[in-house]
């Protein structure tokens, strides 16, 4: 009995999907064409992005007066797809000392205690952030007894951002195309999200470097968790939400 019901349900779902594709084939074809076109455009624009990333990083590190911060491009996969490169920074942080431990653990404790004075909306996030930071500092700090280079951290950040840039047409094809019938708007939203991610990457890397210089390498896991891919996703969601509020055609 149950298997018959499951078969009927499966048949209904297939029928529904077929009907949906039949009635919207033009929209589906347009979405697939746009997905392929935008992904191709992202790939073609990658050399320009890499030039911008290198240029911006060199300019900003020279502004900071950092001692030989090695700026360069490294391939995402060693030995394969050599053109798929991301920017990275080479900057060596000394092993964490008592000062770093004090700043990180003390800062987390003070934040936890003062969260009660913050507006109601921020209390829980601030407390969660403090607890998370303590965990990250303790667990990460015990394994960090030597000088740490920022290069792997920067490479991971840049790789995840690059993945997001390249996958943005696919993500939006699966979500935005369902509710936005206007193709130019969809392309514009995709360009905005990808453009912002590409533009913000060098600023993010430099921001991480400056913060790590202040807080020490103990803050690296927390920075990666909260201000790495999570921040990118939040930014994309914010742009997407803004795009959804754009007025539609009216009578």
């Amino acid at each position, binding site marked *: 009995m149950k298997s018959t019901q499951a078969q009927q349900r499966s048949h209904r779902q297939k029928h529904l999907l077929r009907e949906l594709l039949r009635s919207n084939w033009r929209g589906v074809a347009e979405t697939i064409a746009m997905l392929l076109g935008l992904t191709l455009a992202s790939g073609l624009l990658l050399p320009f992005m890499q030039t911008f990333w290198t240029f911006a990083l060199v300019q900003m590190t020279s502004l900071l007066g950092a001692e030989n911060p090695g700026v360069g491009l490294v391939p995402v996969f060693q030995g394969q797809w050599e053109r798929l490169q991301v920017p990275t920074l080479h900057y060596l942080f000394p092993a964490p000392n008592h000062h770093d431990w004090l700043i990180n653990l003390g800062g987390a404790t003070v934040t936890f205690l003062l969260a009660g004075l913050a507006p109601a909306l921020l209390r829980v996030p601030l407390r969660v952030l403090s607890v998370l930071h303590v965990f990250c500092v303790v667990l990460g700090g015990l394994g960090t007894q030597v000088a740490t280079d920022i290069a792997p951290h920067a490479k991971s950040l840049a790789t995840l951002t690059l993945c997001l840039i390249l996958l943005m047409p696919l993500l939006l094809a699966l979500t935005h195309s369902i509710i936005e019938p206007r193709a130019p708007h969809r392309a514009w939203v995709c360009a905005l999200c990808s453009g912002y991610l590409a533009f913000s990457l060098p600023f993010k890397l430099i921001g991480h470097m400056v913060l790590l210089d202040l807080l020490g390498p103990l803050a690296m896991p927390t920075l990666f968790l909260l201000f790495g891919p999570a921040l990118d996703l939040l930014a994309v969601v914010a742009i997407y939400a803004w795009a959804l509020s754009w007025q539609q055609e009216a*009578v």
Partner: protein
Amino acid sequence: MNTLQNGLLLASLCTAVGVLPFVPTLLTRLRGPRVGQTRQTLSDASVQCENFRRLIENDFASLINLARKNGTIRSANDHGQPFIVLGFQSNLVELLAPGSKRLRSCVIASGHLDIPGELICDREIFAEGQINVAPHAVVKSLLSHRDIAIGPRARVTRWARSDRRLDVAEGACIKGWASAGIEIALARRACFQKVLAPQIRFGRQQDQTGPRHNTDTTGRFEPPVRSGTRPGNGHDLQIPAGHAVKEDLILSGVLVIGDGCHIIGQIRAEKGIRIGADVRIDGAIHANGGIEIGPRSCISGPVVSNGKITVAQACVFGSTDEPCTLSAETIMIGEGCVAHGTVHALCRGEVIAERNAP
């Protein structure tokens, strides 16, 4: 420019870049809710409705007559706001471009008006005849000289006024003020905020399976009187089932009223009130905490809570001659209930389906 200044410049630049995508969100947050109904806008809704009615009577009467004879008129007022005056035989669907989902014109119909499904109407709508709102449509304000029928899962965002009868289908939502000259009928899972009518019916009206209220009470219950350190009748109080109380009850804790009791007097409990089945209360009820009302109870006075009011099936509030008010932050009301007067949920009101009822 030294290194410190450069560092500060870079820090501010990085912050600006990080905050950039959140600017629209922050602006929306700072601007406050635009669509959400505040208490002020709710109280203004009746005034807005009357202003709109006066506007129709003064400015659009001749246009409606003209549209009856010559057909639909499309124009804009002095402020550039567009309006459509529909003729007697005209249909709103015919005026919409294929695929359009938004209507920014004020619509005035000289006859019946059908609002198509999934359409978002940003301006007020008036019809001399009946208004039918199709499923999934979103309308701002509705005014009709006759009936209004709101389809399943349709939404009214500001106010709705029918001079006769207002029907709200299953899953529909009236976010704001709704009023009817004769009756409002809300189907199950319908959401509401402030509804006013001589008679408001919630869900399917059931056949009476038990006594509406038990007049055969077994005895008189004398509540303990404690004054001085404790207010009124003490902290918590439980009235056994089937008793009559002819006195005001004022408590600092929780009041529990058993099944089939008859209370003649005002009730006030700080922490909450639980009322059993088939209870009759002739007086007002007020609680700072929640109020739970059992099935088939009959309450003739206002019921006010600062928390949540949960009403089981087939309860009656007030009467046609003596309308009353239910007011709370949240009101969950069972099927088969009837209220005469006003039901005002400051945050959320919902008609709960029979199987989910308390």
